[in-house]
């Protein structure tokens, strides 16, 4: 894997990605011209409310947009190749081998009728053309790595015999089987207990370094990205608001939406009791209807800094400094203040 070896090499660059859903009620602009990317070995957090298009923009990398959705425009440069131009057969060879995915709900993402060994071994037998025995050996090794006790015995067990946390470990093992260069984790811990969440996240971090992978972490949980991500991209209503490294984003968010999102997050170092008069803030309004999104900046109806120009002009993404971009009219250098 030449891709993985070099540090600071660009692994993925998504440019102008546009995904539309052609529903009976109209065309839903689920992802409307977004750019994001990451370097080898990096973890990118893709953050946003439900329906902001974060899952769709990660599924687009695998070209698995559910119907009636379609990728209408954009480039997905993975290494040096544009995934948009690949044939379906070529994509099948990439899915699972070079880009793998971990799903939100471990209970449903394993096929109930096959044993763990069968499901995981199958992948190696396809992608790596291993024999049954070699595949089994590798599966056992990986199950051990993801912290499953007695991996040899688990091979013959069925998904319903495992607990939720165990299943998610199996799913992680499945994603890592072919040593992919990029792992997409779609809210990997949302359906788990808090204690198990922490274990799974730690394990993911560790394995990511060990396997020299990059990861895109899709989540709405700011706590999870704070812990995991090197860089964070904030999405709102199918567009990107802000991209920055995690520290900058948390300490000095520029986009009003990012700032508002951080405000809604409970903090340990703050008291929310009656006396302190401090309350968790709420972003007023709802995520807009993406069939007819607001004109101009998508966030302007809910933004407390918005003025008349915001409803007319769609903000371009502006580079504030290296690795920090924001799309807000109020933050453009010409606007002066920031």
């Amino acid at each position, binding site marked *: 894997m030449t891709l993985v070896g070099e540090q600071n090499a660009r692994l993925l660059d998504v440019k102008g990605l546009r995904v539309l859903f052609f529903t009976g009620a109209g065309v839903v602009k689920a992802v409307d011209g977004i750019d994001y990317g990451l370097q080898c070995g990096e973890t990118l957090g893709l953050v946003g409310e439900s329906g902001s298009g974060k899952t769709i923009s990660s599924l687009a990398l*695998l070209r698995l947009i559910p119907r009636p959705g379609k990728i209408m425009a954009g480039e997905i440069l993975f290494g040096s190749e544009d995934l948009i131009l690949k044939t379906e057969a070529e994509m099948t060879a990439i*899915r*699972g081998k070079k880009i793998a995915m971990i*799903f939100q709900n471990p209970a449903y993402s394993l*096929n109930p*009728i096959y044993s763990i060994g*069968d499901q995981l071994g199958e992948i190696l037998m396809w992608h790596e053309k291993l024999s049954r025995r070699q595949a089994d050996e590798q599966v056992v090794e990986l199950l051990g790595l993801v912290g499953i006790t007695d991996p040899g015995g688990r091979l013959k067990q069925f998904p319903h015999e495992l607990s939720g946390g165990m299943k998610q470990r199996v799913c992680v093992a*499945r994603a890592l089987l072919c040593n992919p260069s990029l792992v997409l984790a779609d809210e990997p811990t949302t359906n788990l207990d808090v204690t198990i969440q922490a274990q799974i996240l730690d394990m993911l971090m560790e394995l990511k370094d060990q396997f020299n992978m990059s990861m895109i972490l899709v989540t709405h949980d700011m706590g999870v990205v704070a812990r995991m991500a090197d860089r964070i991209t904030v999405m709102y209503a199918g567009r990107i608001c802000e991209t920055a490294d995690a520290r900058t984003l948390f300490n000095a968010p520029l986009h009003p939406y990012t700032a508002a999102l951080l405000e809604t997050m409970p903090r340990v170092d703050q008291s929310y009791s009656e006396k302190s008069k401090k309350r968790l803030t709420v972003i007023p309004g709802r995520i807009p209807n993406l069939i007819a999104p607001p004109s101009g900046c998508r966030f302007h109806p809910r933004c407390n800094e918005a003025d008349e120009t915001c409803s007319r002009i769609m903000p371009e993404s502006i580079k504030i400094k290296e690795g920090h971009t924001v799309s807000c009219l109020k933050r453009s250098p010409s606007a002066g203040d920031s």
Partner: protein
Amino acid sequence: MKNASEGTPKTNLKQEAQKPGARKFGMLMLGWQRFKRNKTGLFGLTLVSIVFFFAICGPFIAPYHPNDQSAMLEFRSKSPPSLKNLLGTDRMGYDVASRVIYGAPTALVVGVGSMLVAAVIGIMLGGISGYVGGMADELLMRFTEFFLVIPVFIVILVMVRIFGIVVVGSVLEKIPYLNLSTIIVILGVFGWPPIARIARAEFLRLKEMEFVEAARCIGAGSVSIIFRHILPNALPSLVVIIALGIGGSILMEAMISFLGFGDPKAISWGQLLYFNYEFLKIAPWASIAPGIAIFITVLGFNLLADGLTDAFNPRLKE
């Protein structure tokens, strides 16, 4: 009951899982554990097993050859059940017990054969309909509904008769049991719509499941998705409707034969009724015995289907 249902299957399953052969049948084993506790289902299975036993061992246990009319020569036709003829003899001197036993394989071949044909057509069309969706789904389902509104029984009678006439004098006539095969194929060709509907519903449900999406993300192609991930998960529901269909087909064939449209060379229960119903008052045993055989077989398959529903879709009944 509740505790037992949670405790036993797991432990048994683990023991089973040690055997290499039991590896793939996790869900089937669980289903069997649930099925075992279902008395109706077990009763159905018993009845079906008995019929299968007679069908397979018939030639060894039947007291007479099915075409043995010797009782007639001894002036013992229409004689009531006795030690010599356990279920009596009919008006042509056949031993009723032997004829009924020799009717079992016919019934099963018709039932299973026609449902195999129906299952292949039904799963294919229903599967395509559910998996592809859109326009194909719309067209195939309208086609299926068209088949559902046809008065199947009359069409079958007409087709069997027409085919029987067309064939005369051609090479096809030499095929043994041609008439019976025709009935099997026609029953299958008209019996697929319910299977197609279930298959479509299951494919629709399963293709949206996360494990199917997960399989796709791992790089599974459509063929593997359909045959390895969707179809095996759809089988439990399909098996239920197929088991019901077998009972239905056997009944259908009995009706066709009873009306005299059956295969004259094959011994079938409907045909026995057809031969003997006119003598119902003089030799009732000759009509009652095949009637009971039909009853037991059809009941067996229906109860078996019922038990399978409980075993594979336990939530349905609670």
